[in-house]
């Protein structure tokens, strides 16, 4: 298409293979960009394992024939760099070169390896490079959670010494090297994006340049919404059903939630009240955590209904069965998709009052915020939600809906154009490697 803007969206996963929030957001962005006039987009999503077709790290999906699935091989767990660079050199770069992108928008450092950014800079010197950081893995080796490895206490700042404290077997110097490498490689991008102010501030606090860092919220596809349960909006029926949507892991705080539910006195737990736990992967976590969750489930008894894994398409139906969505994460979160989905369906959110959750949920306005890792405080909030007349309608009425995909795409397009314009201005001044004039 002559004169069109060509955007390659590179994501660490394809939502059909790995339906995480960042994968869904990046894939949705690529789709939405295609709907804009004079914009072409290409979506490349990573997939684990070797390529299914001999001789190539690339494949496609029958359901999404326009997308490219890329099998990059494993990353270096500490430095987040590629360990097998041939797939990039032999397969990915030719695909991108053929697409001739004006913008390469890389989502997440994972998947391709953060050293793809400077490699792209050399391979596609005329393309603008934009990177969206979806969480803190670039800062934190503890799965990007920014919590202490042993205690899961919140961590504010990743320093080599502090990281060495979490991982005593890794010298502090390697963390210093990691931090420098992350900074240098991401620093070769033209612009960095964060879906939340909180995440952006975290990276700025770790030395990233503010003048090339913006906040753009993820867009959410505006599909069918789940109506409120009958009578809840009018007050005829008490809003007594809570929903937890997400992975059953130590960071999502499901154990805190189960503990809170279990400790609410029967007098405060009305008939028909229920917690729906929709999520999976408990079996992938340490036995101690599994045992703890099982014990808490036993203690909560019939107050909790387990649903197990769910597909994205199942969400409206599940959401229709609950009144509140609880997000009790014990880590900072970034821009949790579950909150956007709850707001999309008009459900107030009870969340931990930290990080990306506290940024999106306004306490007493469109949800309730509680102290993280505090079952008693969460129980109080649940009781308040159960017993306070008029609370649910008031909070639900104040909900700010998520940014629609189309609007998010438009905002991204605006940013792409500003980055391209700035690059054109920068080009007036010779760009060179810092050592170019020294060596």
């Amino acid at each position, binding site marked *: 298409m002559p004169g069109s803007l060509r955007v390659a969206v590179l994501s660490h996963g394809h939502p059909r293979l790995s339906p995480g929030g960042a994968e869904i957001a990046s894939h949705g962005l690529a789709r939405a960009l295609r709907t804009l006039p004079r914009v072409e987009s290409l979506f490349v999503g990573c997939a684990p394992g070797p390529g299914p077709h001999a001789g190539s790290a690339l494949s496609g999906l029958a359901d999404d024939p326009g997308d490219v699935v890329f099998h990059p091989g494993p990353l*270096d767990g500490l*430095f987040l*760099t*590629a360990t097998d*660079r*041939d797939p*990039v*050199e032999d397969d990915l770069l030719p695909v991108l070169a053929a697409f001739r992108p004006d913008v390469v928008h890389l989502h997440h450092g994972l998947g391709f390896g953060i*050293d793809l950014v*400077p*490699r792209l*800079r*050399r391979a596609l*010197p005329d393309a603008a490079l934009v990177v969206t950081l979806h969480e803190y893995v670039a800062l934190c080796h503890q799965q990007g959670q920014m919590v202490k490895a042993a205690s899961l206490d919140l961590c504010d700042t990743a*320093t*080599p*010494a502090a990281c*060495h404290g979490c991982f005593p077997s890794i*010298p*502090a*110097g*390697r*963390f*210093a*090297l*990691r931090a*420098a*490498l992350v900074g*240098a*490689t991401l*620093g*070769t991008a033209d612009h960095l994006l964060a879906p939340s102010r909180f995440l952006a501030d975290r990276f700025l606090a770790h030395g990233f340049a503010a003048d090339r860092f913006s906040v753009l919220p993820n867009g959410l596809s505006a599909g069918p919404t789940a109506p409120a349960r009958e009578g809840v909006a009018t007050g005829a029926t008490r809003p007594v059903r809570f929903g937890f949507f997400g992975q059953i892991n130590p960071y999502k705080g499901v154990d805190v939630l189960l503990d809170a539910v279990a400790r609410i006195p029967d007098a405060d737990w009305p008939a028909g009240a229920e917690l729906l736990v929709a999520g999976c992967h408990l079996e992938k976590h340490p036995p101690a955590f599994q045992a703890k969750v099982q014990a808490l489930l036993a203690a909560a008894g019939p107050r909790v209904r387990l649903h197990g894994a769910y597909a994205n398409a199942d969400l409206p139906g599940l959401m229709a069965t609950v009144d509140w969505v609880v997000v009790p994460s014990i880590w900072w979160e970034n821009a949790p998709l579950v909150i956007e989905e709850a707001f999309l369906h008009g459900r107030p959110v009870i969340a931990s009052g930290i990080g990306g959750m506290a940024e999106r949920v306004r306490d007493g306005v469109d949800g309730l915020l509680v102290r993280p890792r505090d079952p008693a405080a969460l129980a109080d909030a649940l009781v308040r939600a159960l017993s306070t007349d008029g609370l649910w309608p008031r909070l639900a009425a104040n909900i700010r809906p998520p940014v629609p995909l189309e609007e998010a795409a438009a905002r991204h397009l605006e940013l792409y154009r500003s980055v391209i314009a700035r690059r054109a201005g920068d080009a007036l001044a*010779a*760009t*060179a*490697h*810092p*050592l*170019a*004039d*020294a*060596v």
Partner: protein
Amino acid sequence: MPSDPTESEIARRLVAALVDRRLVLAIGRAAVPAGRVPVRLGGVDGPAATAIVAGWTGEAGPGALLLIPVPRGLRGGLTAVAVPPPTPNAVPPHAGEPVPSDITPVLHPVQPKAVAVEAVLKLAAAAAGPAFLAVAGALASALLTLEATAERTRLAAVLAHAAARPSGLVEAVGRFAEGDLLVSGWAGDLPADAGPVLVLGPEPARGHLAALRFPRPDLGDGRRAFAGVVAPSDPAAVLPPAEAVTGVLVETAAGWSALDLYADRRLVPPDACPGHLAALRPPASVLPAAPEPVRRQIAEAACRFTGADTLAGLAAPVRLGLDRAVHVPGGGVMLAGWLFDPEARVAAVEAAGGGTAVRLDDRWTRIARPDVPEGLAADPAIAGRREPDPFAGFLVHAPGLGPAPDLRLTLRLADGEAVHRPVAVEAGTRADLFALLDVACPIPAVAAGAVERHLLPALEGLARALAGTAAPRLQSTRDLGFDAAARSVIVLGCGPDLADLPARLALLAAGTGRDRPAVVVAAPSRPLAALEPEIARAAAYAGCPVRLAFCADAADALDCLDAAVPALQADWIALLPDHVVPDADALARLFRAARAGGPDCVVAPTLLHADGTLRAAGAGRPGRPPEPAGRQGRVAVPRVSAEACVLPRAAFVRAGGFRGPFTGPAARGEDLGRRLMALGLRGLWLPDAVLLAADPPEAVPRIARLADRLLARRTAGATECRPERAA
């Protein structure tokens, strides 16, 4: 061959033979003074010398044999000898003194044609008749007082053998491992004191015999058994092997005695000599009075080390344990152990082997070892004895010793005996020395003293030895887009762990431009070769042109820098060991500052460590300026660390790189900085060029840190800093 002189020639002239290039044996047929006689060579005004003269008066008239030293550069040769006339009852002038003016010397012309020594002796024997024996004996004795040469010793042996009378037999002979001879047998008139001997064999040798004499039932009157040791007369002399010995000529007060070899003499093997001597040695009660030096010499020889642990059999309450003995090339042997000696029986402790002995007890550091008396509690010989203090342990450095097969510890007891314990020494590295001291000296103050006294000399010796032999060296290189003509090069020094190298290359190459710095990866050959494909791909992926420098005999990153840098052509190099995180921007500023500073400067960054501490100019302690974080621009500093810096390549090579006795990278960097300053380079510090540093991959051991600090204290001076100019 010279022809024999005629009688008429002898009558008129001295007939001379060359014993060696500096000594003439001459026969004359005139009366001359005997003994040491001052003479003039060539004429009455010729050079002075002292001749040794032995004369006779026979039926054919007087005559004499003269040993005449010939000075170097005697003009015209020895044409005549001016000798004082014989003056009965007159004492000849002392050697070297001028002949008194009232004495007119007699000029004896020398026959121009030299003859063989044997011819002179033959003439003398014929002329002197029975007096020849005394003349020969006297000259043999005199020859032994002169500087030794093989020719003189041979002549002395001939003369002494001619003069000697049979006196006894050598029944057993052996040669100690140290080279001296064991002799035992019987004799009639051996002197009590040690005296000169000539050992006869294929090549006669000079020696000194110290022997104990004692009665033996099978010997008749006037004969006594003897057992003794013949030591070489000087350290360079070599005595013949035992099986080659054919006899011993002993100088006694009455002349020379010959101890012939018994036909069925016993050959004693070297390791049996001490025991043989000890077995022959009678109890002190039956010994006739023997001079103390002789007693001591025999006692010493009788308890020499033969490879056996004689300490184990010692009845006295003396116990010794050796925990560890480590030898490092050039650094001697470091010994750690304990000595329990509650009755102070031990007079001296020494370590010996390979011909070198080092006394230990005058240099060692005693260390508290409360476990020693506890461990010996069950030893019946100790029986509750205790030392007055708990310092039974010892640590000592024995310089000059090596892994000799006869290495042992010797305890010299107060009664003159000596006992030995073989030492199994392990070949070690400096790391082994650190480990040894770490265990032996747990208390910091003791460790400091021990490091100063024992470790530093060992490390310095090791550094000297390594400088000559096992220096890190460049085995080969592989260039991957590397521009060998680049004038500025970053040298990444790596240790054996290359896991972080791809990340370091990626970090160094990350930038916005297309021009890439020239990078050398200097790493130990084996891991670098193993990871070469991976590193090559990582470098290509990062767009980083590199040279892979395969280094041999390199233990760590700084060693590899030492090996790789000399082969470069660059004018400027940035040294970047593997505990410093690469930063292209900071390095660029260092290069710029170096160029601006001139070709005689070393530019160091600020090192920011993972714990948040700073090292200004890489120099800790006195080099730290008051406000390092706020400084900008180049700052001239009198001391700089070259641990990570930019400097002229030639200066690095001229200063010898990181070689030396220091261990930790920081200390080695500061040491190189000092040497660079000594070469006249200027130290510059760029405070706002901050490089992240971490602890080295291998933690520097406690003892090594201590050693580095003490070494640095020896050489470091006061440091001040002043701004050079605004950037």
